[in-house]
């Protein structure tokens, strides 16, 4: 099996070099060495939150989102073309209780002889659509519950992804990736050579000039090493090998934006379903699964009204495998169900600032919580446009 991984890696690297023209870094003086004209586009995004809750301890405790005044995240993003062949993006972020970390740092091809883009580095991986979003680009203050549960909080790994534009009458992108397989919830294979594989198929149709439908499916498979993590209360038997984690997902996105005065009105309906199954020591378990569905309505040039419903179910065998970010004691011998209903009013005066007022009702294992969150989202500098 390790040989297959090795050869897959080799083939991808070969393709990359074929498209970009292999070059060895040299010490030759570059003609553009110290010119400031080639500085990357640099931007910094800040998310400041104020949160109130009716409980002493929040049920669902995402990092950087707690009662009181906090900065949720500060993220610096740099983008530039490396040379004729490659573009690079680096996003460094820091949350209030975490150190500065690399959210993304990857290079992608600018020109290939076939309709293919290759990305290599640490990146938000193409599982569904929501996982590709940075926190400041999300419509709501926090990530959907099911993505937090399964990926805790993102699937962003050192990886190689290739996206091939299929020759079909509609937009259809076939994406395949090899991930390092170190997501703490899902993977961490027992041997260093273990990697995870990702496949995503993205399709978009223009129903009319103003309506689009986007449908996609994702599958991720990797290996989880044995023995299990130390915090497992009921350790699994070490059979000397790996067990598989398989996650599949489906996403749908319906969008309306009028051509005429499209800045004033728009409507988006978006949903994703994720199903994560971990083969525990050869024994199949019930999956951790859930979904979210959200609606965004723009009723004025600067105002949006939004609603989201989240739901997930976690089987009791997986409580310790998928711990975060639940913050209350519950019966470990029972499955845990959670749901959240959110309403949000967003005031977006310019592309570079947004004010959100969000209400959450959270129900976890029968316990309820009401949250109110106010958020200021600002961006300074040259920030690249966001994808559709």
């Amino acid at each position, binding site marked *: 099996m390790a040989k297959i991984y090795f050869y897959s890696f080799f083939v991808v690297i070969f393709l990359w070099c074929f498209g970009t023209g292999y070059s060895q870094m040299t010490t030759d003086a570059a003609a553009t060495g110290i010119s400031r004209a080639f500085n990357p586009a640099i931007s910094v995004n800040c998310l400041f939150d104020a949160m109130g809750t009716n409980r002493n301890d929040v049920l669902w405790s995402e990092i950087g989102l707690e009662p009181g005044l906090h900065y949720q995240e500060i993220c610096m993003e740099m983008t530039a073309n490396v040379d004729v062949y490659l573009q690079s993006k680096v996003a460094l972020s820091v949350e209030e209780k975490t150190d500065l970390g690399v959210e993304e740092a990857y290079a992608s091809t600018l020109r290939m002889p076939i309709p*293919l*883009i290759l990305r290599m580095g640490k990146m938000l991986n193409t599982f569904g659509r929501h996982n590709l979003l940075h926190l400041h680009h999300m419509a709501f203050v926090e990530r959907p519950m099911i993505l937090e549960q399964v990926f805790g909080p993102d699937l962003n790994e050192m990886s190689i992804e290739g996206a091939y534009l299929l020759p079909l009458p509609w937009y259809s992108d076939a994406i395949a990736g090899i991930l390092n397989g170190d997501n703490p919830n899902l993977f961490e294979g027992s041997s260093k050579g273990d990697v995870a594989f990702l496949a995503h198929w993205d399709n*978009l149709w223009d129903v009319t*000039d103003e309506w689009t439908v986007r449908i996609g499916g994702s599958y991720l498979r990797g290996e989880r090493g044995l023995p299990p993590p130390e915090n497992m209360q009921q350790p699994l038997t070490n059979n000397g090998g790996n067990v598989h984690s398989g996650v599949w997902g489906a996403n749908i996105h319906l969008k309306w934006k009028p051509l005429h005065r*499209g800045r004033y009105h728009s409507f988006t309906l978006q949903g994703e379903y994720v199903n994560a199954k971990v083969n525990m020591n050869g024994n199949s378990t019930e999956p951790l699964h859930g979904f979210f569905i959200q609606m965004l309505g723009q009723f004025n040039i600067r105002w949006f009204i939004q609603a989201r419903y989240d739901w997930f179910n976690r089987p009791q065998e997986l409580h310790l495998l998928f711990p975060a970010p639940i913050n209350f004691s519950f019966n470990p011998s029972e499955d845990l169900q959670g749901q959240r209903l959110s309403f949000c009013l967003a005031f977006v005066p310019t592309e570079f600032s947004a004010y959100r007022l969000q209400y959450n009702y959270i129900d976890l294992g029968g316990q309820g919580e009401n949250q109110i969150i106010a958020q200021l989202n600002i961006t300074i500098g040259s920030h690249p446009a966001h*994808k559709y």
Partner: protein
Amino acid sequence: MKKQIIFMTLLFLIIAIGTGKAAKKLDVVTTLPSLASITENIGGDQVKVYSITRGVQDAHYVEAKPSYMLNLNKADLLIYSGLELEIGWLPLLIQGARNQKVVVGARGNLNASLALPEQGILEKPRGEVDRSMGDVHPAGNPHYLLNPHNGFKVAEFIADKLIELDPDHQSVYENNLETFKKALSEKIKQWETKAKVLNGLEVVCYHVHWSYLLDWLGIQQAGYIELRPGIPPTPRHKREIIELIKQHGIKLVIVSSWKDPKKSKEVADETGAELVILPGEVNAMDGSEDYFLWINYLVNQLIEKWNSHREKSD
């Protein structure tokens, strides 16, 4: 044997017709309908032109829909306005299209603003520029096709590029360019003669958009209803603009068909000025279906509204 010869001859003819006669047209994608219209005039039957934005769309605020990438993926040539008009969406489309013919720096990538000399670009900010000044274009106002003299230059620029990419049809492109230039020169003379009545007029615009048109016709812009480019007016700013209109005796308030005319109408109603709604691009309103009709519509509408106001005053 005879049957085989007939069959082979027919097969050869079919292949020859299929490959020889059906020479591929140049696939051209433009970002604006005005650029598409000029390209159609120059390219004629030798090009297939697709405009990413429609006339009714404000090209500043287009979303990078993946379906646009599909069109760009097949393109031989991309023609765009430049001056950062499409900065918010075109880079994403180019990258997503995965077509090395149209990436920046490739032969099939044409920034039409490069047809204009540096001094021909209006409203290029001098000194400090930052976002507290609103949606300013650091490279200058990108709506240069509102002046038909610039249409001339852009047409020549596009013709040069079509000849470079498809030298077999050089004579076709040159002839079409000559026809276009002749027709446009005649129309420019007519428009300039008709629009003499507007020379020296002062107007107020909702947004900084019409500078090339107004500059060409000798019309002064006394102020803008927007507080800053892209930022709606505050009540105080609106009062100041109303005062300005009254003090200067301004008779026309101009707004683009892309914008909600509510605020402009309130200002016009309160001051007695005429509200002029103009198509921001080719095909943005009925009667502006191509580049000639668009400029014609703009000139006629301004004259008509000015005359209408004078008649009311008399």
